[in-house]
């Protein structure tokens, strides 16, 4: 951090000023002139919060994707299918048992199993052949999409939000002051906050596991140099299977999350694959903090875009991607 400030004092200043302005926009009561210029504060605050929570969901999908890529150099284009598969499993479990929490656990286990099968049956056979693996995953994603369409139909599924999470809560952020002097607080859907917190917990846990545990050390070593790691006697194939299972399981959890606050239907697989590709390209391939930053940026861009420039909202995310590719092609937080 200090090194960044020393090396790029101007950039650091700009970032600090931008953060200060953002904090002011969030916490201050807006003067009437500003409300007239860019609309009500409630709308702005909602868009920011939505962007952050949507970023949480994107992070869940993209972190598994980036983890698998980082270790195995394997662009798994069937990642979106794992997301959708997890969502459908989650729906089936929550519909039959009524337990939302249980649906997460089972979805994680089953998608992780699919991940293990993929790694053992498909990827191990073509290790090191990046292009071939990529083509195979494209093919698999099409096959999975059709199988799921066959099994679940084209219907929209929504995972029932548990009753203690339905509805909004008041956040201690003032959006406006009534003429009587009474402050109006921001009302925000509780379920989105919970999901966001959960994704932060998962992100931190993953960071800790990677940086503070022995298995994390092995994985990091594998990211740096696979061959040397294998030569030191680590059972690298086992590590591959483990990482693939974890990445797939995260996609499965993300499917349950997505099915709860959005919906599940054919086509979602491609949408989330695309989203995680963009997130990972912006953040840096193979980097977990990069995935977090990328997810936050893309989530905010989508939501702020949909409020302030609705017609071009779709373009904004891709513009960001183009910009990153032009200025810093390896991604914002990539190490190399």
């Amino acid at each position, binding site marked *: 951090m200090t090194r960044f400030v020393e090396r790029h004092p101007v950039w650091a200043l700009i970032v600090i000023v931008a953060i200060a302005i953002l904090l002011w926009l969030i916490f201050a009561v807006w003067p009437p002139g500003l409300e007239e210029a860019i*609309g009500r504060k*409630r*709308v702005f605050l*909602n*868009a920011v919060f*939505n*962007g952050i*929570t*949507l970023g949480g969901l994107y992070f869940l999908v993209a972190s598994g994707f980036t983890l698998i890529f980082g270790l195995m150099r394997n662009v798994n284009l069937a990642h979106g299918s794992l997301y959708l598969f997890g969502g459908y499993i989650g*729906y089936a479990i929550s*519909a039959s048992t009524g337990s939302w929490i249980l649906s997460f656990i089972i979805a994680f286990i089953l998608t992780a199993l699919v991940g293990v099968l993929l790694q053992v049956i498909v990827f191990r056979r073509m290790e090191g052949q990046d292009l071939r693996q990529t083509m195979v995953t494209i093919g698999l994603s099409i096959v999975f999409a059709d199988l799921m369409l066959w099994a679940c*139909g*084209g*219907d*929209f*599924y*929504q*995972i*029932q*939000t548990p009753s203690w999470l*339905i*509805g*909004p809560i008041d956040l201690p952020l003032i959006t406006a002051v009534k003429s009587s002097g009474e402050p109006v607080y921001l*009302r*925000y*859907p*509780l*379920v*989105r906050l919970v999901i966001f917190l959960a994704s932060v917990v998962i992100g931190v846990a993953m960071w800790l596991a990677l940086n503070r545990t022995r298995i994390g050390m092995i994985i990091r070593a594998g990211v740096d140099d696979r061959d040397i790691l294998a030569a030191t006697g680590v059972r690298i194939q086992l590590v591959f299977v483990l990482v693939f299972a974890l990445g797939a399981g995260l996609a499965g959890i993300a499917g349950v999350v997505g099915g709860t*606050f*959005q*919906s599940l*239907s*054919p*086509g*979602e697989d491609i*949408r989330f694959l695309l989203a995680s590709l963009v997130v990972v390209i912006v953040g840096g391939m193979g980097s977990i903090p990069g995935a977090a930053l990328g997810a936050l940026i893309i989530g905010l861009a*989508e*939501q*702020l875009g*949909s*409020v302030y420039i*609705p*017609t071009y*909202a*779709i373009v904004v995310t891709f513009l960001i991607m183009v910009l990153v590719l032009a200025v810093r092609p390896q991604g914002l937080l990539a190490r190399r």
Partner: protein
Amino acid sequence: MLKGSLGLIALTSLFLSGAAMAQEKIKVGVTATLEGTYTVLGEDGIRGHQTALNVLGTKIGDKQLEFVIASTDATPDSAVRAVRKLIEQDKVQILLSPLSGDEGIAVKNFAKTHPELTFINAASGAQETTYVDPAPNFFRFNMDGAQWQVGLGKYAYEEKKYRKIATVGEDYSFIYTQVFGLVLEFCGAGGQVTNRQWVPLGTKDFASVIAALPDDVDAIYLGLGGADAVNFLNQYQQAGGKAHLMGGSIMIDQTILSSKGNAKNALIGTLAASGQADTWEDPGWQKFVKNYQDAFPPNKRFPSPSLLATNYYGSTMALILGLRAVNGDLSDNQSKLKAALAKLEIDAPNGKIKLDSNRQAIGTNFVTEVVDDGKGALFSKVVKVIPNVNQTLGYDPAVFAKIGLPSRTVPECKKY
């Protein structure tokens, strides 16, 4: 051994195809949105098409109708690609296509490049398709989006006493046409439309759109369909939304009313208008509902046919009746069929339909309200039936032309 039996199979199939060739076939290409946001709509459209074949049969005199189905995703280029594939590879002679608004405009333009073939619109409802520069070989036996909103604005103003409304709609031609119909009537009656929000087709996260909805309106009109509508409702419920709602024709439809989950309950009591009403007591409609229900097991269909099923049923019916009128004669660039279709009047489940000089349907429209049947299923209940709705919505054609074409900002909120 294996080789021998393979040869036998090949020979048998040769004979089989020979036998089939003896009977003359008429090949019809059908497109439906079986991918993307509107998948459920496409699937139910195909169910309506199947129901029509069950009822009317697939024989025209001694000729056999054969159908080839192609999938699209509601984008115009996917529709043109599917139609081109049906014509060039499958050699279809007649098309039953497409389902969605933008697709309709693209297929109509494409139809001009194949003047020898006949195109019957399956379900699309953008106004421009038949109103601007119509193709002489393109026939639409369903009403357009604006016709499907007739009665809604007036009913909301006079009976519900709504004075100010805002709209949220998907950003493409069919919803423009729907909002066009609504605004024209609501503002004509004296109401105000304060805000029109447009979201891209396929939007998943509506939270910010919901936050931006104005508070100071009597009702919010939703022009969404398919997955978008379900997502909106789900997030609307989570945000604790309480406003009065009004709905477009594919918003208040079995595709949404029978979606899984309980977010749809926000729609109970919602006022809407469409080319059909689930609980209409007309015997023709009831018979169609029964045929639809009998054709598919309960878990493979909706409790009652959606607007798409009804449209596909109507267009398939028009196709078969038209072909029967000329006894399957497709000679002379199908000119006899085209002439027969132009003057065909069909007794569709949702009322009598005839075509105007642009080959656009004139039919019956329904104002409805969503009710719970007591067992958790939602239906649209008729509150008003309006017969003989034409494309200019009862306006003098010269006045209507001055309003302009449906778009994000047209029509203005005023009395024309």
